[in-house]
């Protein structure tokens, strides 16, 4: 699909937030990173220092979940993503990604599963530990999403100092990982029979992937923080190489050239890239009816541009709108509730969870 186009060509500065009311439903959180709805009025959320909490949106009460795995909280690392098992209502299982110390006192990405029973995690089990040890927890990735076949995808970032390893298949830097929910490896993974590759790898050549979702037609969408001017939105397909850092549209934040090349045979082009960078941090594909203007479009939170980008794919063109920029916050995470309300999590210590209410 030749849809890769410089995003700025289609960037409209339309601010629609005057049509919405923003209600802060949770405030002063301790660097909350992700959240998921247990019901319309109850969310389960992570805080980077290593806390998992349940908040009632009705009375604003917050309960600590106990028996959390120990995490390495610093820089970009800590307790990151939490997602519910597709059969959570019957099995109470959740999945968490986090950075933690390895045996050799380095840090890597872990994925654990546990049952959430009476505000406590039981039967915890590490189901994946990335072969991506690093000195400090930079560029962790750590996004989780489920495929229709019940397997799960995890993003594992390039670790910044290890970017070249994103092109090698003997490690988990800059890769998407596909495993079964018990940690075993699906036998149809693309590199399962490659002796020189780690069998969990699903795609490679990525940087710091902070957005991941699977749409109802089974496509896996991923966005990643690029270097300066090189944030990307991609469709992930098994076994493909997405080029980082051999091809990129950005330059290093130090000003150094990462690569003079933007394309090469055998390396995938992004659906779109952002120049200047927006630092995309999360995304949803909105399919409910509460905001008809967002139906069947991508809503992508951004840290640097401090807004939500609405991305529409139409007639081989990509259109974007900037939403909610008058919130003025770096935006970390976005989810839609069971009833279809959009909730946005701001970024950093003391952050807020904000409900977007249509005025009409």
């Amino acid at each position, binding site marked *: 699909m030749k849809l890769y186009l410089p995003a700025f060509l289609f960037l409209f500065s339309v601010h629609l937030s005057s049509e919405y009311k923003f209600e802060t439903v949770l405030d002063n959180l301790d660097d909350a990173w992700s959240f998921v709805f247990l019901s319309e009025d109850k969310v389960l959320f992570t805080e980077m220092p290593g806390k998992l909490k349940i908040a009632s949106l009705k009375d604003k009460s917050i309960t600590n979940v106990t028996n959390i795995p120990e995490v390495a909280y610093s*820089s970009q690392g800590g307790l990151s993503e939490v997602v519910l098992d597709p059969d959570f209502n019957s099995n109470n299982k959740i999945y968490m990604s986090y950075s933690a110390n390895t045996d050799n006192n380095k840090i890597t990405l872990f994925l654990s599963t546990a049952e959430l029973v009476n505000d406590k995690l039981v039967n915890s089990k590490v189901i994946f530990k990335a072969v991506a040890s690093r000195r400090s927890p930079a560029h962790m990735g750590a996004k989780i999403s489920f495929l229709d076949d019940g397997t799960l995808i995890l993003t594992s970032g390039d670790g910044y*100092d290890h970017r070249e390893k994103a092109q090698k298949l003997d490690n988990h830097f800059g890769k998407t990982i596909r495993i079964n929910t018990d940690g075993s490896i699906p036998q149809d993974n693309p590199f399962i029979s490659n002796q020189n590759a780690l069998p969990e790898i699903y795609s490679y050549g990525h940087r710091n992937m902070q957005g991941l979702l699977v749409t109802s037609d089974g496509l896996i969408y991923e966005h990643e923080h690029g270097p300066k001017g090189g944030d990307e939105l991609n469709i992930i397909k098994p076994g493909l190489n997405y080029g980082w850092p051999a*091809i990129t549209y950005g330059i290093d934040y130090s000003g150094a050239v990462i*690569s*003079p090349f933007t394309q090469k045979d055998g390396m995938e082009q992004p659906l779109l890239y952002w120049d200047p960078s927006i630092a995309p941090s999360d995304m949803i594909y909105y399919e409910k009816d509460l905001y008809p203007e967002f139906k069947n479009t991508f809503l992508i939170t951004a840290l640097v541009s401090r807004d939500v980008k609405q991305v529409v794919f139409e007639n081989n063109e990509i259109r974007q709108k900037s939403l909610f920029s008058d919130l003025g916050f770096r935006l970390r995470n976005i989810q839609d509730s069971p009833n279809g309300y959009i909730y946005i999590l701001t970024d950093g210590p003391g952050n807020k969870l904000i409900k977007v209410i249509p005025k009409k």
Partner: protein
Amino acid sequence: MKIAKYPFAVFSAALFTVMLITPISSISNLLWLNSVDMPVGIISSLEVLLFDFQRLGILLYGVVIIGFAIAFSFTAVLINFTNISSKYLYALAGAVSIGAAMYLMVELLFESELLGGNRTFVGKVLHWIAGFFGGYFYYSLISKNKNYTFIVRFFGILYAYLILGFVLNWVFTPESAAADYGFVLKDLNDNAQNALIRDFTSFFISTFIFTILGVITLNPTWFLAAGIIYYGAAVFNLYAIFIHGTNYNQIYIGEIILGSWPTIIAFAILYFKKKE
């Protein structure tokens, strides 16, 4: 001039060291790109080397100046208490300050290794060696008497170094250069694109060459020529705004600065020559 000699020797030695350091990252990057079968050639190599020297170099320049200023001040005191030759002490101080700067950039500032070329042991050693030569260069500058030409040349080289950024942008990445002026190059028709690329490139490359010739010959005419071009750009920028009704922009302020810099150098040369 005697007092001014020392800070300008630090500035000059730092620039010289940056010139040695940035290719370490560039070359290690090019070697890696080549190892993964990217079509690295002469043009792409030049692009990486020159861009890194200009863009990465500016960032490093500040760091190296601070490192050298501390290290060489300390060395100036230390010299009184040791019999070791000054030139080796300064060279050693340069190496230590570069090593310390690279270490502290990781530990205190970025928590990651910003310089690709400093990620391996060999790369680190090459950085220390660059610092060693930087220190030696500093010693060679302070050990001789200097007149005004030293400072004039320094400011000329610094000016050329900044202009080099514009040159590289228009030569290698005209789309990005155009974006800095607020327009999308690809939106223009072929003739307009061609005209802009050739005129802008020629404009910046000419002033760059004038400046280098000025630095070599110390003939003020070269600096004045560069100044006239940028003053002209400022005047006709305002002309376009007020006579032809184009959008107001503040680029003329930058043009006045870029015009004034070489013009001041030119008049400084004339003044000192007359004084001599």
